[in-house]
């Protein structure tokens, strides 16, 4: 064959190929009224619909079981993370739809004062039975997500892994589910007995605790179980206990000892065993105009005697110090503001000294009211300067502002802090002479 004929044949074949490609390409070209992505998606969805098992459609979302829908999504070629989110949405659909139905109905008839609670509790207008229905649906959805997709979609924020870092991620999600189930049941029981707790209610609480213990024992190894007790049980998560622990900075051995005492106190409180008398620390001498109870109630607080025996005198004194709100506040800020432990203790001691001096000034029978007021103003100013020198203005200013009693000193209100109880008195209140022997209650 001549070269020109061969060239012509090849050229014609190439043109035919190009024509074929253009013909196919023109079918995919979006119309002017459709953005390219939508058009492409539309074609792809059409194709998927025709291809049966891999069709991704709204109908598939609404009608297929979550497992079938997941398989359909995977067959359609979507990336796995989109598949997972869509399956989660599919599973949660039933809860969302039911919640919206119940809320819409309840909001029609709820009085305005009940609607206000929606801000903090989106289900507040529902009846206990409706709330239970939703909780059951949520539990079912969570179990299904775990079964179909594994743990990652249930802990996207990383909070569960943080809280239950002593077990594997899979077990952590199961543990979280178990704990939340019992919390939900407990919350429901508590809701039903908010103001009236009968012996039967106490029995039910006891039964729930025993059941939870049994389930925990089945899920966790003995070592994991111990770690759960120390780090994630109700006692461990008692916020007042943890605030004091964070301020006290115990060794692990000290923590274990204090935990055991706290657990015993919690169990006494749960059993309804009341202490002989409320644990109010002794009032300072003189007239007292008011006391503010802060933090834990007497019945669930570690007893001083037991703590002293466990810690020894020196550390017990620090344990006592760690109960004071102004100490706890500063200890909390220490880590994020690079404040040393020594500084925290020094500032706390300075503030405690300030309160003692304020009480002495208010009780001083040799000064008149004007002199006392002036002394209080001086006292507050001196303390402010000293605290600022130790912490720096940017930490000292908001810190002193956060102490409810500090500014009151310069306004003539004396303060006495005993553990977690704070007493106040005005310098204008006449001083009552102490009875012989002193130490009178105000």
């Amino acid at each position: 064959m001549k070269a020109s004929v061969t060239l012509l044949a090849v050229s014609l074949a190439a043109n035919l190929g190009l024509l074929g490609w253009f013909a196919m390409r023109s079918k995919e070209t979006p119309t002017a009224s459709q953005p390219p992505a939508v058009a492409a998606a539309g074609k792809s969805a059409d194709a998927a619909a025709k291809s049966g098992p891999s069709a991704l459609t709204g109908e598939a979302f609404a009608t297929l079981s979550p497992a079938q829908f997941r398989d359909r999504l995977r067959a359609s070629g979507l990336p796995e993370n989109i598949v997972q989110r869509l399956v989660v949405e599919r599973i949660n659909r039933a809860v969302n739809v039911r919640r919206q139905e119940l809320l819409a109905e309840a909001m029609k008839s709820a009085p305005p004062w009940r609607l206000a609670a929606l801000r903090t509790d989106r289900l507040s207008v529902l009846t206990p039975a409706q709330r239970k229905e939703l909780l059951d649906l949520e539990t079912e959805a969570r179990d299904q997500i775990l079964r179909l997709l594994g743990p990652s979609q249930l802990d996207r924020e990383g909070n569960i892994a943080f809280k239950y870092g002593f077990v594997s991620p899979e077990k952590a999600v199961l543990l979280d589910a178990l704990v939340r189930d019992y919390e939900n049941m407990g919350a429901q029981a508590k809701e039903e007995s908010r103001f009236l707790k009968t012996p039967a209610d106490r029995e039910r609480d006891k039964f729930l605790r025993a059941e939870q213990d049994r389930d925990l024992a089945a899920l966790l190894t003995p070592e994991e179980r111990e770690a759960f007790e120390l780090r994630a049980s109700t006692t461990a998560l008692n916020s007042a206990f943890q605030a004091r622990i964070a301020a006290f900075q115990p060794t692990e051995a000290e923590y274990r000892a204090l935990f055991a005492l706290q657990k015993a106190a919690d169990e006494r409180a749960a059993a309804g065993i009341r202490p002989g008398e409320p644990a109010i620390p002794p009032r300072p001498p003189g007239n007292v105009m008011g006391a503010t109870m802060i933090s834990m109630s007497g019945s669930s607080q570690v007893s001083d005697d037991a703590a002293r025996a466990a810690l020894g005198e020196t550390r017990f004194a620090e344990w006592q110090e760690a109960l004071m709100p102004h100490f706890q506040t500063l200890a909390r800020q220490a880590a994020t503001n690079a404040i040393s432990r020594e500084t925290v203790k020094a500032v706390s001691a300075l503030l405690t000294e300030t309160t003692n001096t304020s009480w002495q000034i208010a009780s001083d029978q040799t000064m008149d009211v004007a002199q006392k007021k002036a002394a209080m103003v001086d006292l507050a100013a001196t303390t402010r300067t000293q605290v600022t020198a130790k912490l720096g203005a940017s930490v000292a200013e908001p810190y002193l502002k956060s102490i409810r009693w500090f500014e009151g000193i310069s306004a003539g209100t004396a303060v006495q802090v005993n553990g977690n109880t704070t007493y106040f008195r005005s310098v204008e209140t006449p001083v009552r002479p102490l009875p012989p022997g002193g130490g009178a209650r105000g």
Partner: protein
Amino acid sequence: MLMKPSTLFLSVSLVANLAGGWWLLRDQSSRAPAPAVVGQPTAATVAASADQSLPGKTSVVEAPKAPLTLEAYRDQLLAAGLPPEVVRAAIRALIEEPRLARQREIYAVTARQPWWQGGIVYQNVTPEQNAELQELRKAERAEILRVLGPAGLVADADRERYAYLSADKAEKLALLERETTERRRGEPGLPAAELQERQRQATADYERELAEILTPEERALLAERESNTARTLGNRFEFFAATDQEYRQLYDLQKAFDEKFSGSLTASIGTEASRARSDAMQQLSADIQAAFTPERYAAYLQSQRPEYRALLELQRRFSVPQAAFDQAARVHASVSAEAQRIADDSALSREDKRASLIDLAERARNGMRSALGQELGNTFITATSSNWIDLLERGSVYAAQPTGGMSTRNVAGGQPVPPPPPAPPPKS
């Protein structure tokens, strides 16, 4: 000069080859994947980070395709007919993933700190880590807005909360709330005065923008449901069957107080500000009393007391007949009034008061047993969370305050007794 037909035909064919080849090259280059937005996550990058080892995986995603943009995935899912809110949730989750992945890393590091020194309740995130997460959150918001529009930032909870507004307004309001929260938040180390100024400005901006979104009537509705005033009253009205008029009257009184004193809620005890607040609170109490008839005021106060609420709970749980309930409620009201009278009686000595209160406690027990029957009466007496009758016996008298809460007096000179615990929050 004329070409031979065969040469002409070959030339035309070759030109067509060249034109077709050029077109092919141009089209291929135009179909290349869209470049990722700098600093922003894309579906492709997010897809690459996803964990592929999953339980129950029955079919495998086909050979890697050219990654699509987030918008393309969005459009593909919408075109397939998936509900828009589902598509939004899925795409939003993709956009959130880089920030969440970093957050998980940070939490994993904080979890390694000595757990016995606190830090098991909250993650002790450093200011730098916090700032990093805030930056990522900011970028994430911008990307959500770009890909999904404002609707992408609005959660189901927001839509349900603002269901009384149009969908459009509900979205705008939810966004405004979120932005205001962001604006009010200070960076670590920000001087207190600057933070205060920032918060003041954020509040002023919020009010201005709110007025642009909502009509005055809608704003009133919002305040009625969302304000602190409404929440305060919500607790007080939980067990009081108020009329609309009663609620409005108390709402207006409380609102006037809150507007004037909300800033001094945390004022240091003993300062002028806290004294002024305390005086105004007394005035508010008097105004609330004046807003009711004497009978309704007594019913309002009674409904604040934990033991009365326990009585209502008893009625609900044990189907107490209405007549028995009414009788028990009368016993409760009369015992409470008598306890106050004894506490206020300056002619009585401490010992007399103590003896009278012990008698009164016994009368309360008998009255309840007589109204409710022996069994339910005993249940009420022993199971009431406030321990009301025992407190009487110990010389402690407490009164419900019209502004909420209780005040307690120990009139018999015994050990001071703390007031009954405040009512627990209605829901967990």
